[in-house]
């Protein structure tokens, strides 16, 4: 049996944070400048009482309804998040019950950011092709907005909340997912981090607001991103991962019909595209209305490319995720000739 990506759906929170609102908060910044620097016009922000798992639940429900999927047939649930409901229990267990999936269903969370979708596909393929699962839901969701300090425009202009649900099923047919290239470099852990809140360092009550040289400020309880180091990491890693994957798959770059990279920011994506000499028509940029949605960015981009006709039946698509960890991964998927399940 082979793993087959049958359908993708997404769910976004209602509230919109647009560049006009951000520009009104930050002196010297205009909506046009924010767009020029990020390629993002607006982001969706989760409500105060809305968890990432609430968004994941909605995405999964939409997928189940649209695909007329019998929840009883789902035998594995993978949930990728860095904003879980609890320290414990596992949010995937809570979602299994909420979604009405059978108690015979396996479920686990995995904590990855921008590389998460690639790892999810890798786990799904392994579970299905080793005979451990037949019908698998891969959910991704995060609410990074809750990790950001309002005084830190470097991250507030980029990140948006969102969730996706991908249905992966076993089919007797040629390989449609893989091969995979993975990578990890924990030396970069401190460059994209929420320092407190885990067991290493508890949340600091009334933490001091610390300004940096660029006019941004945050506390130790907030997400910190060293943009320059992350960009450096990306330039060192992504082109190599692309090359390794092409070699592993035994194909030329020209054989790839579409490239979907983690939607980090459009400046970085444009730079990578030119560096790798990928034609613009073969390269998906889908972040204008949602921003950087972390592990949901690749499936959201796939869904948008499908809706806009950029992703066509039978296309060979390269997916590359990279970011927090550092962690990265790349794979190829052959988009099914018939997308209905």
């Amino acid at each position, binding site marked *: 049996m082979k793993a087959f990506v049958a359908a993708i759906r997404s769910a976004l929170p209602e509230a919109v944070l647009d560049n006009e609102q951000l520009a009104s908060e930050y002196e010297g910044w205009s909506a046009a400048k924010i767009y020029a*620097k990020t390629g993002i016009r607006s982001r969706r922000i989760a409500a105060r009482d809305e968890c990432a798992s609430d968004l994941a639940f909605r995405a999964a429900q939409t997928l189940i309804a649209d695909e007329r999927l019998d929840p009883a047939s789902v035998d594995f649930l993978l949930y990728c998040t860095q904003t879980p409901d609890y320290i414990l229990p596992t949010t995937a267990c809570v979602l299994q019950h909420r979604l009405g999936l059978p108690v015979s269903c396996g479920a686990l969370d995995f904590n990855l950011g921008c590389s998460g979708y690639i790892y999810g596909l890798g786990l799904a393929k392994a579970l299905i092709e080793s005979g451990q699962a037949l019908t698998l839901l891969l959910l991704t969701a995060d609410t990074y907005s809750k990790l950001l300090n309002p005084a830190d425009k*470097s991250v507030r202009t980029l990140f948006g909340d969102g969730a996706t649900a991908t249905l992966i099923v076993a089919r007797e047919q040629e390989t449609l997912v893989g091969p995979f290239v993975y990578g990890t470099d924990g030396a970069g852990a401190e460059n994209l981090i929420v320092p407190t809140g885990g067991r290493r360092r508890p949340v600091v009550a009334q933490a001091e607001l610390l300004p*940096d*040289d660029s006019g941004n400020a945050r506390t130790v309880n907030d997400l910190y991103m060293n*943009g*320059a180091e992350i*960009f450096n990491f990306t330039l060192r890693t992504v082109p190599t991962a692309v090359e390794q994957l092409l070699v592993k798959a035994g194909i030329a770059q020209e054989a790839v019909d579409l490239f979907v990279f983690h939607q980090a920011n459009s400046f970085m994506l444009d*730079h990578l595209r030119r560096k790798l000499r990928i034609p613009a028509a073969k390269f998906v940029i889908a972040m204008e209305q949602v921003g950087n949605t972390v592990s949901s960015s690749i499936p959201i981009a796939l869904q948008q490319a499908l809706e806009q006709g950029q992703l066509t039946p039978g296309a060979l698509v390269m997916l590359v995720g990279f970011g927090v960890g550092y962690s990265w991964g790349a794979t190829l998927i052959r988009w099914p000739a018939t997308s209905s399940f």
Partner: protein
Amino acid sequence: MRALEGQLELPEGTLNGNQALADVEGWDSLAAVLFIALADEQVGVIVSGDQIAKSKTLDDLLSLLGDKLTPERPRSTS
């Protein structure tokens, strides 16, 4: 240096090598990212964020590009 002026949207001739980065209008974390892109695209050098953070002047910054600069290269002060 002229390319950097372009990236920072400064008029040509604004920047000179001895200038402290802290005094350059528009120099911030985003500009550091633009500089990394420029260095990669024009001279094929991937500069680290830490190296940029340690640079005090424009000359320090340009010295990170090693000997791969175009004839415009100013003398390094570091």
